[in-house]
Each structure stands twice: as structure tokens, then as C-alpha cells.
């Protein structure tokens, strides 16, 4: 018998004393891990098929199942790790490019965790957010530096279009196709209720969701899927996707198998056809070309909607952002190297791009130096995990953050990182109707609202502790941050002092 080089990564352990043979685990697992043997009257598990999404663990009515990392592992080696060996086996067997999903899981520095936040003591009193009004509202768009007045001295209100957010957090771009209809509905409804925005991603906007248009940012990517006049007009803002943190410089590729009926309608491409987004926009090879797309979108929407430009955080991000700020864009979205994805080549995801913390600090500083910081808003994404990350991002210079992975976790994602398979047992990264039905839009949208309501409270606590009662006053306020265990270069790029200084 031919040896299988790939040993199961996980092991399913069933407590036979508890198991009632209800076979729910068998029904719940789209990977076909669990099977009932009638002749023996027992349930068995094929661990090789398990992705550790924990659906069976979570749904087992008697808590009889647990999944553990398989002990059958290669001899320990800090250099030739199990992952490295498994990947070589996979490529040797198939000749394929490794394809992964969700964000970079490698143990690279997380700068958020090496930054500490200040609080007032004695000299500058802190504020109690339970008693005092605290403003978490932000506006995204150009902030004119001069006020125009008519001949009678009255202000002329011709401010450029902007978005009003009740808190500086929005839901980042995830296309219908990469995530399910129900997941989109959860995001759309939660954004509407919260007074913030969600982003369609590059897969168009489902007809049923046009009613949430005032809470929607519509995305235009190189494939221009589902982009037409009504779509552009439906949203509150338009985002041009130039790049994505999980795969900078790489295009998108939604396999034909995921272009099912409704996804096909929304993307406006035939069922079963691959949806290929070329790596660059082939009409954009320069800032001048980008300016042309920014203004053609503004023309198409009568200059009523802000236009965002999303780029991945890469080495020369400060210079790139300076160019984008001069292209006429109203906001720049910087997506860091930990940003999630429905599918990206593993090597690209894990090795290309830079941390968003460093990119943000560099961009904010550069735009200030050039005197164009107020010409654009800065939005950051790429693994914003908590309200603390939001506060740190704002103090580093962001106007707002986008969250995606955090939102999906709120909806039940267990970060098994198998979105590319399309078999998501939690009804999120799948188009199979029976799996999608597992995500209840009523419950899901409520969970998202609760998550961000909690974050908003925490943001107010942070602000109160710092003695700041308006989030705008925290923007770029790097004196509120200190580094811990960072090198001089890291501190210099972040523009912060070391703790104790």
C-alpha cells in the first residue's frame, strides 16, 4: 500500500460514555469527518478530513467531542517545522501553488501589542464616560482648510462629500461569493443599526441589499464585477481596490465552482465562469491614471460621494499614499500584511507586505510633512482585533478602522482558515444553501451590534482615562502612546517614545 505522507493534523476524541449516537455531528460536518457504522452501532471519525472548525464540538448536545492537535507529528525541528514539511509534501504531490485563507498566522511582531496607552493622573483629570458626554463620531472625507464666505460674510457650505460614522469602526470589504448571502445581510443590517458602514467587496451588490445603500461602501476592483451605474449610485461611498494586505500585487481569483446562481447575478458573470481580477487595474499604471478613475467615478456619481482608494501596506507606502492623496481621492485605506482573505497564495500571504502599524505611522507622518494630511482621511485595516487596537490606530494617525476577521469571528468563525474550500460549517465562507442557512441574519446582525457597542464603550473608557472627550482630539496624538520592548528604529518609524521616556 502506498504511504500517505500527510498525517492527520487533528485528532477527534469522542467520549463514548457520553455519546448518545444522535448523529448530529455527522449532519453538521460538511467535510464528512463523522460516520455511523450501523452494524457496530458506533460513530467513527476520519481525522484526515477534519479542519478543526469545531462545529461538531460546539453543536454536540452532550459535549462528547473534542478535537486536539494530533500527537503524530514530525520530529521536532525549529527550522524544518511541521508546516514546512507538510507544504513540501503537498507541492511534491500536486505541483500546485499553495492556497490559503484568512490572515497571516506566522509569529511576526504585532506592534499593537508593543504599544501602551497613556492615562491621566493628578495633573490632567480623567473623565468619567458614564457621566460626561463623550464624542466617538468621526467624518471621513476631505477636510477643507479654509472657510469660504459670501459677500455678506455668511459661510458658504460647500464641504466635500463625507461619511459620518457613529464610531471609528467599519466592516471591511468582503465580497458576496467569498462570504455568504447571510453573512452580507448580517453586516449590512448591523452597519445600518450602528450608524457605520459595511463594504460590498468586489463582487457587486445583491439586489436585496440596495435598501441598505446609505450604510454601504461599494467597491470597484480590477475585474469590475457587478459595477454599473445603479451600483455606484446605490452606495454612500465608492472604494477603488488597488490592493489587499493578504495578497499585495496579486489579483483575485474566485473559482467557477463558487459562481453559483445568485453570486452570478450579483457579479453579472455566467454561472461556473471563473471570476478573475487582474493583479493591476490595466488602465492604472500611474497616479495620473488613478486620478482618472477617481474622477470618472466622481463624474458617474455627480461628485456626491467620497471615493476611497484601498492599497496594501508595502515598502514605499508613504510615497504611494502621498500620490493617492494628490489623485483626488477622499480617503486612503491601508491594509496591513495580516489582513484576511477568502483565498490567497500561502507564500504571498505570509511573506509580502508590512505591518499596518508601521505603514500607518509612516503615511500619517509623510502626509503631515507635505501639508496634505487634511486632504484625505486614513482608514486602516489588516487585523484590528479589539477596541485597544482601534485606540492605538487612531493615536497613530488613523481616522477610522475597518474590521473583517473580527466581524466574522463575531458571526461564529473559528479561524480554521479553510475558506477556500467553500465548505464553511458556520455558514460564512460558503455558498452551499444548507450551510448558509446555519447563519441566522437576525442573530448574526445582533451579535455584530453587540460587539461594536461593547467596543464603543471601551473606546469611551480609554478616552476618559486619557482625559479626552472627543475621538477627533486623539487622532495622531502620539504622545498618548509609548513603546515597550521596541528598537530605536521601530520607535522612530512609529513616532513614539519608549515607555518610561
Amino acid at each position, binding site marked *: 500500500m502506498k504511504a500517505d505522507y500527510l498525517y492527520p493534523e487533528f485528532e477527534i476524541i469522542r467520549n463514548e460514555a457520553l455519546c448518545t449516537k444522535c448523529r448530529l455531528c455527522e449532519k453538521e460536518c460538511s467535510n464528512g469527518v463523522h460516520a455511523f457504522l450501523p452494524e457496530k452501532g458506533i460513530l467513527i471519525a476520519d481525522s484526515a478530513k477534519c479542519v478543526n472548525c469545531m462545529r461538531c464540538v460546539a453543536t454536540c448536545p452532550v459535549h462528547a467531542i473534542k478535537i486536539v492537535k494530533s500527537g503524530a507529528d514530525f520530529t521536532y525541528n525549529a527550522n524544518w517545522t511541521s508546516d514546512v514539511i507538510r*507544504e513540501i509534501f*503537498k*507541492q511534491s*504531490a*500536486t*505541483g*500546485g*501553488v*499553495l*492556497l*490559503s485563507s484568512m490572515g497571516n498566522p506566522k509569529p511576526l511582531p504585532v506592534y499593537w501589542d508593543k504599544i501602551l496607552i497613556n492615562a491621566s493622573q493628578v495633573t490632567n483629570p480623567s473623565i468619567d464616560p458614564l457621566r460626561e458626554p463623550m464624542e466617538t463620531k468621526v467624518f471621513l472625507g476631505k477636510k477643507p482648510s479654509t472657510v469660504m464666505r459670501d459677500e455678506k460674510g455668511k459661510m458658504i457650505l460647500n464641504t466635500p462629500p463625507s461619511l459620518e460614522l457613529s464610531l471609528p469602526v467599519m466592516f471591511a470589504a468582503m465580497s458576496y461569493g467569498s462570504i455568504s448571502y447571510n453573512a452580507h445581510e448580517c453586516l449590512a443590517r448591523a452597519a445600518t443599526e450602528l450608524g457605520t458602514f459595511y463594504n460590498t467587496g468586489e463582487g457587486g451588490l445583491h439586489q436585496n441589499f440596495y435598501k441598505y445603500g446609505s450604510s454601504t461602501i461599494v467597491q470597484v476592483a*480590477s*475585474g*469590475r464585477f457587478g*459595477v*454599473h*451605474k445603479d451600483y*455606484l449610485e446605490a452606495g454612500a461611498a465608492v472604494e477603488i481596490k488597488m490592493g489587499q494586505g493578504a495578497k499585495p500585487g496579486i489579483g483575485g*481569483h474566485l*473559482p*467557477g465552482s463558487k459562481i453559483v446562481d445568485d453570486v*452570478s447575478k450579483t457579479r*453579472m*458573470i*455566467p454561472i*461556473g*465562469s*471563473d471570476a*478573475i481580477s*487582474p493583479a493591476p487595474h*490595466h*488602465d492604472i499604471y500611474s497616479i495620473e491614471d488613478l486620478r*482618472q478613475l477617481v*474622477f*470618472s467615478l466622481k*463624474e*458617474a456619481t*455627480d461628485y456626491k460621494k467620497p471615493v476611497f482608494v484601498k492599497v496594501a501596506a508595502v515598502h514605499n507606502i508613504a510615497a504611494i499614499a502621498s500620490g493617492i492623496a494628490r489623485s483626488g481621492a477622499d480617503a486612503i485605506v491601508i491594509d496591513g500584511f495580516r489582513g484576511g482573505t477568502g483565498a490567497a*497564495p*500561502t507564500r504571498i500571504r505570509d511573506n509580502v507586505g508590512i505591518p499596518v502599524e508601521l505603514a500607518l505611522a509612516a503615511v500619517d507622518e509623510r502626509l503631515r510633512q507635505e501639508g496634505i494630511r487634511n486632504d484625505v482621511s486614513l482608514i486602516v485595516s489588516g487585523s484590528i482585533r479589539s477596541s485597544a487596537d482601534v485606540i492605538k490606530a487612531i493615536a497613530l494617525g488613523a481616522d477610522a478602522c475597518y474590521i473583517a476577521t473580527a466581524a466574522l469571528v463575531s458571526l461564529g468563525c473559528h479561524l480554521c482558515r*479553510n475558506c*477556500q*474550500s467553500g465548505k464553511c460549517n458556520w455558514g460564512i465562507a460558503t455558498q452551499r444553501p444548507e450551510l448558509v442557512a446555519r447563519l441566522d441574519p437576525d442573530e448574526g446582525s445582533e451579535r455584530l451590534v453587540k460587539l461594536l457597542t461593547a467596543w464603543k464603550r471601551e473606546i469611551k473608557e480609554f478616552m476618559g482615562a486619557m482625559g479626552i472627550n472627543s475621538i477627533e482630539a486623539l487622532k495622531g496624538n502620539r504622545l498618548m502612546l509609548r513603546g515597550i520592548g521596541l528598537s530605536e528604529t521601530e520607535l522612530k518609524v512609529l513616532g513614539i517614545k519608549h515607555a518610561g521616556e
Partner: protein
Amino acid sequence: MITINASTHDNASLCEMIKQAKDDVKISHCLGERFLGVGLKDRYIEIDGTPGNALGAYLNGGSVKVNGNAQDAVGDTMNAGTIVIYGNAGDAVGYAMRGGKIYIKGNAGYRAGIHIKAYKEKFPVIVIGGRCGSFLGEYQAGGLIIVLGLCKSEKNVTGNFPCTGMHGGRVLIRGDVSKITFPEQVSVGEATEEDMNTAMPYIKEFCSLFGYELSEVLGSAFTAVKPNSANPYKQMYVEN
């Protein structure tokens, strides 16, 4: 019809006047003004001169006629309608176009018809009377591109790397393609009767628009280029 002299207005107000006009519009003295007819869904616009980039981008119906050359990104992400150019067009004509028709009497630049796609009743068509630059029909996902090569040129009818990444639709090229190198993902062969039947209404319309004899255009053989698969990249990945 409303007539506007482009030389007496700035670009932004010219665009605004076209949008506000309730009637068809004739623009004279056009010299590089961008975004003309962006997102229009009805009406007829006729332009004398040379419109600038992104003419008729997101066009959603109606028709645009240019008595002269056009620049880059004509009909970008166009959804419906017709654009007729009595001259040459620049680069990336019909980028990601989903529906409607673009007729060009002369040549087209690089990346003509890049990523055009068809959907249900929407079937985008680009007819280029002369020759075109490199990367014709790159990433083409649907629709029809016809290159007629009705010009005297030493060069090939298309530039280099036509139909790279093509995964839908078809390209018809009139005349000699023996010196053109096509990528692996496409099949290249003599146009079938079915190919020609599909193309005929558009070839006829081209002839009637620009005053060519149908017999002259049909006098040379047509080559059809089609993708080998709708999923050309499927085998390249292994789940990790």
C-alpha cells in the same frame, strides 16, 4: 439638439452641461476634455474633435458618436449603449465592458477589450476597423471582439500577446494571423459558420456606419480565437 462649443467651457462645466441637457447634445471644438458622457443612460451625443480619456465610461444606454479620434479608456466598464468613433481610439478601449457596442473606424491602442464579459442578455461587442496594439482581449471573459485590419500596414493586425488569460467569449480577426503568437489557453482556427453568423450583424453595421462594402470586408478569411476552458487557472493551486 443642443450645441455646445467645448472651447468656451472648462472640463467640469462641459460634463455638467451634458448631464443637465434634456436633449441630444452636439459638442464642437472638443480638445481632450475628459469624462464626456460618463454614466449616461439615454440620449445621443455627437462630438467634433478629440474627446479625452474615459469617454462614455459606465455608459448605460444611448449613443455617442465621435467625428475624430478618441483617447484612452473609451467605454470603460460600459453596461449598454453604442459608441461610434470615426477615427482611431487609444488604449484600453472597452475595459471590463459588460454590454453595448463600440465601433472604431480606424485603429485601437493597447489592451483593446481587456476583461470584457457577457452576462445573460448583455453581450458586449467591439469592432475595430484597422489594427490594434498588444494585449487585445486580455482576460476576456465574454462578448465578441472583431478586428478587421482594413488598413495598409506592414505590421500584424494585432500586436503582441493577444487573448492572454482569455476565459470566455471570442475574438475574430480578419486576414493573415500566421505571424501572430497566441497563448496556450486559447484555440485558434478558421471562423466557423456559427462564428460568422454571430458576427454578421455587427460587421454589417460597421459597413453601413463607415461606408464599406460588405463583400470587401468578407473578402478575406476570418480567424476565430476561443478559450480552451472557462476555468484556465483551476489546476494551479493546492489547498493548504
